[in-house]
């Protein structure tokens, strides 16, 4: 059996006094489309940052494609070239055009020049940026900036995509649709390993092959939608499952709040 594409063993991460991740163990296989869900401030982005190597956990180990993160310079460089990390708030070069930016990122990931040129045009066209792609990023709307950022992750042709809230940031419905279909296609057909976070379960429900729910820095539940429905004895949507799993307190508080209103 192939080693997992991403493997975390006993990962504990502090920034300050409070641990953000507590002894997390996780294995992600090739071709999985994993969505990390959970309330704000519970460790979703931190977990992704640890996988991406931008954070150094205080305890535990991270392996990517069988290689330890930050083990040696050569291995680390190989890992970095095999996975793209897109944070929720990236910074883009203001004076570059969208097309130039995509080409430059593709070059960083050693994408073949011919493929790079063709792919950049395809992506810009897919996300309705064909015209805008020739002007500096500085003049883009929030949604267009987000689209270019997402395109930069896709143009790298890397086997692992680590994406922090790719559906947020003002994407229009056409952009959301394109992105969902792309992720689904890339995971199924190209066997890309995609790990993403999302605060909105409805957006990822239909594409996720695996859902990891994180709360207070620990994994609360891990499995497919069917697994989570069985776990919670709820046949509803992912939103309904989440209500049972991590928001029972919210439902109780809402009930109390509404009781105070006269009929």
């Amino acid at each position, binding site marked *: 059996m192939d080693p997992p594409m991403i493997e975390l063993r006993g990962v504990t991460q502090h920034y*300050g006094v409070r641990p953000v991740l507590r002894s997390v163990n996780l294995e992600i296989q090739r071709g999985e489309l994993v969505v990390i869900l959970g309330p704000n401030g519970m460790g979703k982005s931190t977990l992704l940052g640890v996988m*991406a190597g931008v954070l150094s956990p205080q305890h535990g180990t991270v392996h990517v494609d069988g290689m330890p993160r930050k083990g040696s*310079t050569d291995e680390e460089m190989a890992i970095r070239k095999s996975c793209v990390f897109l944070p929720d708030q990236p910074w*883009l070069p203001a004076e570059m055009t969208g*097309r130039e*930016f995509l080409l*430059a990122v593709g070059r960083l990931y050693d994408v073949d*020049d011919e493929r790079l*040129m063709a792919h950049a045009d395809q992506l810009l066209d897919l996300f309705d940026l064909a015209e805008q792609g020739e002007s500096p990023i500085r003049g883009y709307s929030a949604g267009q900036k987000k689209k270019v950022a997402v395109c930069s992750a896709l143009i790298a042709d890397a086997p692992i995509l680590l994406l922090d809230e790719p559906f947020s940031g003002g994407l229009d419905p056409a952009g959301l649709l394109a992105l969902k279909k792309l992720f689904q296609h890339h995971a199924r057909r190209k066997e890309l390993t995609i790990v993403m976070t999302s605060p909105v379960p409805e957006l990822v429900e239909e594409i996720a092959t695996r859902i990891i729910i994180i709360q207070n820095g620990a994994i609360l539940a891990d499995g497919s939608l069917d697994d989570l429905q069985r776990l919670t004895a709820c046949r509803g949507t992912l939103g309904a499952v989440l209500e049972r799993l991590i928001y029972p307190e919210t439902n109780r508080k809402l009930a109390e709040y509404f009781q105070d209103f006269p009929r």
Partner: protein
Amino acid sequence: MRDDRRPRLPLLDAARGHLRVTAHWAMWFPFLIPFVMLEGYVRWKLGVGRFALPILTGFLVGWQAAVLGAYRAIVFHPRYDTAYRDWLAQTPWTAAKPLPRGPIHLVWPDGLVVVVLILIGLLTPDVEPMRIVSIYLLAYCAATVSLTLATLTFVPAYLAFFCMGFMARFWSLPWVCGALGLVSYLVVYWGIRSSLKSFPWSQGTENGPLSEAVALALGGAKKDKLGWPYERLLVQPARAFDERKLVTHSFIVCLLLGWWISCLAAHAADPVDFLDGMRGFGYMIAFFGSLFRLAAYVSGYAPPISLAGRITARRLLVPGYDAAFLVFPLMFLAPETVVKVGEALGVSPMVYAPIIPPLVLFIALATPPGLRQWRLTGRHRMVAAISAQDKNYVKVG
């Protein structure tokens, strides 16, 4: 209208072409105006030898020789001019062909420039003609060596630096110094040829040369300024050696620095003053070395855990992060340690003082982790480190 019947003078045409690269005419004014004023004042009012100003005019001649020598080395060098270098990389130019903007090695009209300076120098009583030749060659060689090093052509550059040390050692013997200058130039010329043969040099990132289509599409965009996170994760210093090479090159550079200091020490009168000077030089290297290491190692690479977190988690030391800062106390302790050891051994300060600056520099350059190792394997927390006021980047979300 061009007169085609005008007789062609190939030698004059060639001289015009070469004179264009030897020294821009405007460079003579900042030298000639104060020189004429000072010399004129001394000769007409006070008489030669009655006032100390001839020393100043001699200095002006030497200064002009140094400026012209450095100018000659730098201005037409493709390593110095990024736009020229990038353009040249896209042409079919090879080292077998002349450089389009003009040669970067010395050509015979450069000799004319030196002769003019010597003739001007003859007006002042204290200027030795061979001294002007030496200064010109030293400035030219020093500037060329630094550019040769920047093209990663190490052996000729190090050897030239070593030869130039002999020039410093025999400075008081102008003809010997001049002859050593010619030897140094020959080594520098070898370096120029070697470095041009390896053109195009590294582009500053780990990428290879661009294909024509991508180069055209990218235009003048700065390919290594890609914002967060790409810049931090994948644009690595191309000139960061692996650990063994880093130590080797640092060692050679420091040996050469020590060699130069020992050459200069031959002119030092008082051993105590010399020791103080070297100690001060050592602390200066430690100070600027600290600033450089701080800027290179800390910007964008934050501690993995706050101080409060360290205390709470009972992990006061994070070896994978804190190791990068061991270099600071080492650099500042080195000068006094060398002095104490030298005194304990009863050796003359003229022997151990030249060790101080190279040792501090060696610590600054070679103390692990190297920059590449730190950026790739250090136990830090990478952050964007881009200010909201920075007009070069825009934030998404």
